[in-house]
């Protein structure tokens, strides 16, 4: 199967601290890949390297067909990234945010107008198009962020805790957007602290102290660790962590 992401022996050190400690894995095209780990396990650092935002200490990553460290700009143009910290501009309206993001990703004016209309319709947010983003409920903002992260039809979308603080109903709506994107051929690489969401992934990895301790389908991991639910799998692995989430 074709790979969207290939990672070989990736290491990132900050001074004497090894944030990411020799990880290797690959993600298939169209896969929904859950990248799990406790706070401070190294997930965000690893993700930032894959997005071409951070150089590794050593190792290699090929993302959307490009070497992420030789051609970070090519990678950035081929992926979408929704960061943990909310990535929209609060003082711009919904429509202005669309215009900004779509413009940055190089869509033409006509495309922007059409796409804005289509996406707002799909999100059921037409009535909010002139609302300042800071006035939107959190769940709406998250859905809007996601739509903007895939506005340029990237090959891969990276989602860093997209549903933090979102209630169970809205979280599910968000995941259906991920499913839809995956069905449209977009690979989704997602981190989450909700263990029911881990089960919505095709495969997951669990990072502990910078290393990948386990990687498989959620079902196989439950079997392997003899757990009824995924929360227990995570707990078994992550409580072994030695380093503090400082």
């Amino acid at each position: 199967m074709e790979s969207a992401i290939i990672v070989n022996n990736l290491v990132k050190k900050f001074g004497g601290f090894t944030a990411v400690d020799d990880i290797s894995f690959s993600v298939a095209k169209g896969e929904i890949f859950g990248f799990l780990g406790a706070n401070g396990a190294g997930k965000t650092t690893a993700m930032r390297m894959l997005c071409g935002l951070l150089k590794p200490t050593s190792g290699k990553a090929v993302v959307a067909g490009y070497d992420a460290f030789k051609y970070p700009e090519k990678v950035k143009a081929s992926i979408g990234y929704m960061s943990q910290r909310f990535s929209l501009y609060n003082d711009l309206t919904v429509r202005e945010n669309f215009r900004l993001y779509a413009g940055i990703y190089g869509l033409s004016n006509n495309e922007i107008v059409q796409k804005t209309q289509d996406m707002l319709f799909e999100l059921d947010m037409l009535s909010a198009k002139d609302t300042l983003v800071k006035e939107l409920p959190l769940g709406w903002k998250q859905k809007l962020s996601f739509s903007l992260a895939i506005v340029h039809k990237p090959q891969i979308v990276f989602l860093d805790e997209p549903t933090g603080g979102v209630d169970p109903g809205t979280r599910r709506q968000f995941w259906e957007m991920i499913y839809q994107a995956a069905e449209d051929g977009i690979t989704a690489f997602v981190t989450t602290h909700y263990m029911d969401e881990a089960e919505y992934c095709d495969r997951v990895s669990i990072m502990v102290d910078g290393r990948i301790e386990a990687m498989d389908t959620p079902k196989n991991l439950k079997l392997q660790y003899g757990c009824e639910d995924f929360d227990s799998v995570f707990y078994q692995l992550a409580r072994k962590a030695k380093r503090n989430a400082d």
Partner: protein
Amino acid sequence: MNIVEINGVSKRYGKVEALNEINLQIAKGEIYGLIGPDGAGKSTLFRIMTSLIKPDKGFVKVLGFDSVNDYKEIRGRVGYMPGRFSLYQDLSVIENINLFATVFNTSLKENYRLIEDIYKQIEPFKNRRAGALSGGMKQKLALCCALIHKPDILFLDEPTTGVDPVSRREFWEILKRLNNEQITVIVSTPYMDEAKQCSKISLIKDGQIIKTDSPEMIVADFKKDIIEVSAKNMFELLKFLRKLNSVDLAYTYGDKHHVILKDRITISDFEREIKSASHEGLDFCCVNPTIEDYYIYFSNNS
């Protein structure tokens, strides 16, 4: 004895009605959960209970004190951890703690036993700027500051958002221990596994309280059959289930989907309908509802 009494409280921000005629009694010693979607009015209610904003209508009594007239009495006796990190980012960990201690006319030493477990975890970073701490450590520092004066009530507005499952478990163990020390805990959370650990919860939507009871009773009162369904292609299955006439709600639930049937529809009606199309690996059975099932039902209805 009711430690918090909320009587007919309404609050409006411009056109938005944040709270609409809220009535609520919270007994001493509870771990009380306020559960509801984003924008339901939970944070507004926290700010009113902690005397930080005034209600437009109605009144609130906390520990017998009126939240408007006797606000100073209340503030000295409650701890509040707001949803957004609100400590001083440019002060170090220990400076923040000392500042809070001084404001409340106490010291880190005075109630050290109460916060010892939490403080020990942040002590190695006590000279670090608060702004440079990780999310988990900020949360622990905020909890230390909220507890420094040994409050009678601890108000926690979504304290575990963005916190990993292991740390969440630890956090709830701390809450239970504090609760054993006679501190009443009032907490909001988007996590249903945390809602389940409360002694009592109120479900809030659109500024109104929809239901109040223990989590066990809420589930026991939820008289709906839940059908657990799975197949090889889960997303296809979900879209299919939503088109069925017999189905009221279909939603993902871990590695399965859950289905709630419309009124007066039997499981055999559903069985007939679902078998009208072929789904590879189709499997279904009835399961007991959980608090999460109830939450999804209530947020889609009511």
